[in-house]
């Protein structure tokens, strides 16, 4: 059970059950779909930009607890951040779920994202955790073709 709890931490279960910023954004400046063809996880990320700042961010879609919680936590972390900060968080999160950053040693920097530290021990689930982040990156880069994790 202990290793399962390291994957399904309270923050993740909470964000899965009550996803934050879970809504379509009518007046979004950018939106992009992302999906994982193997699992069927499928989300749309919406962004409202104010100069170089993410003024608002939301998402819709469905998938497993890891993918949904990841999208939800991401939205709370990035709201009000600059584009450069968002890119920095992308790298942090990526390194975390790839097992290249010890959550215990980077707690301050990671904040809520540290809850995804257990994912690296479940290689089959890394794509679930990173789907929303890759989609966000695509949206910031003004991609128009849906992002996939394959």
């Amino acid at each position, binding site marked *: 059970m202990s290793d399962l709890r390291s994957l399904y931490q309270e923050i993740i279960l909470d964000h899965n059950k009550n996803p934050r910023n879970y809504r379509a954004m009518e007046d979004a400046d950018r939106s992009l779909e992302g999906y994982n063809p193997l699992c069927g996880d499928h989300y749309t990320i919406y962004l409202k930009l104010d100069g170089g700042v993410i003024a608002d961010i939301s998402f819709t879609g469905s998938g*497993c607890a890891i993918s949904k919680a990841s999208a939800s936590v991401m939205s709370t972390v990035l709201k009000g951040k600059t584009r450069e900060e968002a890119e920095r968080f992308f790298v942090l999160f990526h390194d975390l779920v790839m097992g290249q950053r010890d959550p215990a040693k980077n707690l301050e920097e990671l904040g809520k994202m540290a809850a995804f530290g257990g994912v690296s021990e479940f290689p089959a689930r890394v794509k679930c955790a990173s789907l929303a982040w890759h989609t966000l990156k695509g949206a910031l880069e003004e991609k128009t073709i849906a992002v996939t994790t394959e």
Partner: protein
Amino acid sequence: MSLEAHLETTRVAYDVHRVRKDFPILSRKVQGKPLVYLDNAATSQKPASVLKAIREYYESYNANIHRGVHALSIQATEAYESVRRRIQEFVGAREAREVVFVRGTTEGINLVAQTFARRRMREGDEILISGLEHHSNIVPWQILCEQSGAKLRVIPLNDAGELMLDEYEALLTQRTRIVALGHVSNALGTINPVKQMIAAAHRKDIPVLIDGAQAVPHLRVDIQDLDAEFYVFSGHKMFGPTGIGCVVGKAALLEEMPPYQGGGDMIKSVSFEKTVYNDIPYKFEAGTPNIAGVMGLGAAVEYLTAVDHLALEAYEHELLEYATQAVSAIDGVRIIGTAAKKTGVLSFIVNDVHPHDVGTILDREGIAVRTGHHCAQPVMQRFGVPATIRASLALYNTSGEIDALVRGLHKVKEVFG
């Protein structure tokens, strides 16, 4: 008689614990727990005799077939052709030359689509498949539609996951050039009434291909009784190795079909002016085939033939009943696919928990199930779910393993509160 008593009676006729000893992998542990392998519709495990047959070929008579005059080549050729005869008997084909070795069901369906069906297809013709099909019995036909301007028609399902036969009859039109139908659904386990459906197609002179990949591990198949033009299956789902399977086709049709691939072994003579193709089945077996795979498949057929089939079918049926009752008794579980006739497939969803999360938690308990769309996305769409959890049974599974699955599902509910 109670279910327990029923199971006990079946146990007398069918000794599952003895069967388990034939499969070396079943004694391994996963995550420190005994492996509970419930992903048999994806691929089955292999008995020691299959592994031995492959090893023996490489260790004692590895040589290319149909070529050399040396002892090893002759021995390999004889062994290869004897497996063809064994498969002929196994599925009840009229002649051994009706058995064509391919990589598996997928390649077999592509072969029939491109050699048999393509020449018959004109713009506006129709190809009839069912809403239960695996992607491998959808996409080759879509490719053919693109090539020929033919249209794909689909037999609908009812809420139990059974094909609607009245609709089927109505979909057999003057434009239907082929019916391609799964014998057993990989996603739901539904056993289709293929004999009756083939007869209905034949009344309108329409040929039928049956995808038997999920049927051969569970049911006794008699191709002459079914009377399908083509019956296709894979080795790896029936306890044989991967990369080998068969198209069993009516000789007269195979003879009129053009080759699928060109190369060595499929020719009688080659010159730059004219090449003469070989006879069937060799015409369809270009290049050096998967010889070791054929040896393994032969051993798998031998293994299945030695099993008391009536006892096995009764055992698998009881086990499915047991699993269905145990799993559906869990609060919040919904079973998808409740056909009256099913093989041992239990597809289900757990309320408010995504199948992949269920799969991860079960994996930590050493339980292997498939989660996802099972290469049958249209089936998922029909039932309005993105994915299911699928526990699929084989001849070595036990009621104790079903109990482990149930405990695992309770753990899922514990984690997700």
